[in-house]
């Protein structure tokens, strides 16, 4: 018997119509943990480098975290990985809720989908019983609507459903996979749609066993209590109605205009009333004492749930107010579109119209007001109608298809992926590295452990580090104590900070922890319940596997380097590692490239950002080095030298 994991994957081939329960290699978790780590290993092993994302050979993998289903709180983020047609790189996507734990209780660590169904199907998993069922009756249905219909059809309210909406069905690149009111963003819904898989409904009634029960339960309860009473974790935007940070500092429209001083008290009062007058409740994910999701029901509009910055993106892209976001989110969530990238795509299209690159003829029947235009374009894009068919390929690819100068309006993407709408003054070295080298496509998926800004006084800095349990090494306390001006920090410190930030995400995404109680949240207050100093113990108690800090760190490095290799094999090189050119007004190309080189060296990558043979061998990835040499990506004569 294995502890914490089930030891089985569900392999589904939609072309052949087969479902198979397959035992996994017993030492996989030792090297790759679970979740995204072991998913990366599958993608490396089984999807050849040249595979088109729309090929039936592309895999769509739903992974539980290694610690899903154990008593550890806030461990419920399901990971979805595949190859994206938008970036041609590995897609990294996560969603909260109940789906991953339910997969474990059904007896599976992963659901691996390959092939394509001839027409729309859904997958029904009830423990050992797995069926590919017809889903033609669900065509065009909304994401949560599909979940509700399937629960009724299966006569089981306990079924957990992940579904695509119309956007996924129509292979819109910004399509999400939705479960309850949680969303798997960053380009996975398009592949689920391409495989003609409308939904997965899973129900499990078997147990997840843990290695050292009493100790793990005690640890879980200690963490649970800390989380419940702490303002240092969870989404503070669920309780703090002062949202001046995003509105005054982030860019509006197509990531264009900052509006410092936009926020005021009258606005805050009005928006607070709007939220609480229309909010049913705040809900939490599986076994988590935080309640980050706001469930909103405006009269005459469908119910929906949001968390975090997701409530701002639409109205900021449209220069409107919160009521507009509430209205459009209720519709967009059912269509299943990414609320981070979709508003930018729409704002980009409206800019092209204003610039005369697109004309009124491209938008037949479009209303004159901006609200009407956003709804109009949302409909066109999710249906891939007219200009919507081009825009559905995302900003970067649409700009190239439209041509005629449209490329210049694609100003906020990196690796062809829409970035957060942030436009600042002076270069921030750590953020430069994170945006440049991140392979999870959003800054939110790499930043998060080291504070974003220094504290003004020495006393404050000292007080902060005194209570800072989360640091993996004392050197981070030194860095923070000596840090006075945001951009004034040594390159050595910058490399370490970026590495630590990144490490926590790779660990969370392999174990199943939510970033709001770990990787993303430490930057605001430093007081996260999960960190490098207690996660090894949690792994040991749950799995029975020997684990300590150095071993966990090496696991992070192995998984991170493997993902780099996967993307390198698909063409990722140094030239792609550029934050949007206007992200900072003041740039210094020479310094940036020097810093990037230092970081590559720090990571054990060569000047092109490719892991060296020596690095790969140190991480037990010699098989990766062999492959990269065989395909001419690594020079075998360079051998072990960095």
């Amino acid at each position, binding site marked *: 018997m294995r502890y914490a994991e089930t030891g089985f994957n569900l392999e589904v081939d939609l072309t052949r119509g087969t479902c198979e329960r397959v035992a996994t290699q017993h030492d996989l978790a030792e090297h790759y943990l679970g979740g995204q780590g072991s998913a990366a290993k599958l993608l490396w092993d089984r999807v050849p480098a040249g595979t088109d994302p729309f090929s039936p050979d592309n895999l769509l993998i739903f992974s539980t975290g290694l610690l899903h289903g154990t008593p550890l709180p806030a461990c419920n983020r399901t990971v979805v990985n595949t190859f994206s047609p938008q970036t041609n790189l590995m897609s990294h996507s996560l969603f909260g809720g109940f789906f991953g734990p339910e997969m474990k209780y059904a007896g599976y660590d992963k659901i691996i989908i390959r092939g394509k169904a001839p027409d729309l199907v859904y997958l029904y998993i009830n423990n050992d019983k797995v069926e590919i069922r017809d889903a033609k009756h669900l065509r065009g249905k909304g994401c949560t609507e599909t979940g509700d219909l399937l*629960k009724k059809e299966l006569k089981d309210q306990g079924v957990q459903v992940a579904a695509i909406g119309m956007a996924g069905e129509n292979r819109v690149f910004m399509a999400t996979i939705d479960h309850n009111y949680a969303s798997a963003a960053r380009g996975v819904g398009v592949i689920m749609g391409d495989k003609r898989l409308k939904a997965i409904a899973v129900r499990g009634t078997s147990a997840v066993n843990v290695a050292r029960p009493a100790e793990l339960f005690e640890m879980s309860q200690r963490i649970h209590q800390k989380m419940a009473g702490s303002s240092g974790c969870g989404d503070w935007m669920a309780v703090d109605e002062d949202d001046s940070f995003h509105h005054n500092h982030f860019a509006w429209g197509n990531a264009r205009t900052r509006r410092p001083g936009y926020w005021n008290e009258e606005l805050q009062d009005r928006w607070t009333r709007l939220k609480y007058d229309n909010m049913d*409740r705040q809900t939490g994910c599986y076994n988590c004492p935080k309640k980050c999701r706001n469930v909103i029901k405006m009269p005459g509009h469908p119910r929906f*749930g949001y968390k975090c910055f997701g409530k701002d993106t639409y109205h900021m892209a449209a220069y409107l107010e919160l009521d507009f976001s509430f209205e459009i989110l209720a519709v967009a969530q059912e269509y299943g579109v990414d609320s981070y990238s979709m508003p930018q795509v729409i704002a980009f299209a409206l800019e092209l119209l204003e610039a005369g690159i697109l004309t009124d003829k491209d938008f037949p029947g479009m209303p004159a007001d901006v609200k009407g235009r956003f709804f109009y374009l949302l409909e066109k894009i999710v249906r891939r109608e007219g200009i919507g068919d081009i825009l559905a390929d995302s900003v970067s690819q649409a700009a190239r298809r439209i041509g005629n100068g449209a490329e210049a309006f694609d100003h906020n993407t990196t690796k062809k992926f829409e970035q957060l709408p942030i436009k600042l003054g002076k270069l921030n070295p750590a953020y430069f590295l994170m945006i440049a080298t991140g392979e999870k496509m959003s800054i939110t998926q790499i930043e998060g452990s080291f504070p974003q800004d220094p504290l003004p006084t020495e006393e404050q800095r000292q007080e902060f580090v005194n209570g800072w349990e989360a640091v993996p090494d004392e050197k981070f306390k030194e860095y923070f104590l000596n840090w006075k001006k945001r951009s004034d920090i040594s390159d050595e410190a910058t490399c370490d900070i970026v590495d630590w930030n990144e490490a926590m995400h790779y660990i969370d995404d392999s174990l199943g922890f939510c970033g709001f109680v770990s990787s993303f949240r430490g930057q605001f207050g430093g007081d996260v319940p999960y960190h490098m100093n207690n996660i090894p113990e949690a792994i040991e108690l749950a799995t029975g596997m020997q684990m300590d800090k150095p071993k966990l760190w090496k696991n992070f490095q192995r998984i991170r380097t493997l993902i780099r290799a996967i993307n390198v094999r698909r063409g990722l090189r140094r030239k792609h590692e550029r934050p949007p050119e206007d992200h900072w007004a003041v740039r210094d190309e020479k310094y940036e490239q020097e810093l990037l080189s230092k970081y590559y060296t720090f990571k054990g990558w060569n000047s092109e950002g490719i892991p060296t043979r020596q690095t790969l061998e140190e991480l037990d990835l010699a098989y990766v080095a062999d492959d990269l040499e065989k395909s001419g990506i690594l020079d075998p004569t360079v051998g072990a030298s960095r």
Partner: protein
Amino acid sequence: MKTVREILVNVDKCTGCRACEMACSAFHSNPKFSSINPANSRIRVVSNEITDEYVPVFAGNYTKAGCDGRHVYMIDGKIYSECSFCRASCPTRDYFIEPDSHLPLKCDMCESTPPLKQPWCVEVCSEGALVYSEREVEREEPVQAALGQVETGLQALMKQHGTEAVIARLTQMRDQK
């Protein structure tokens, strides 16, 4: 005096996180806390995000027959089905039935030696949707001593045929013997 142990369920405070199910199943696993399986839990959160329904319900008595469950309740403008509030372990749904043995499950308030401060579901409900309380109530005067088998039988006969008829018949039977 006797102690009545109660759990107050405040459905407005429930966030639907199901930590209660996790803790219940862990406590009732053998050895304790060794496995987690919400299907084994003696509390389930009946939830439906579309109708904003979140109702923690505890396992009550077992019943052999399912019911039609046709009653629908509207409370504060929201629709709840009869199942939402029903504590029965019944064949209509798979709540409160041990998945391996198919035996019914019943909430025992985490009975334990020494006793816990409060049941585990309440312990982990940081939102206060579940609140535990104990209160003392007067113990009712004990009813008369339990009747034996013969007395019970005679009482039934007397009720059906009248006391006189029973005495007469008994006398007759004794005399015949």
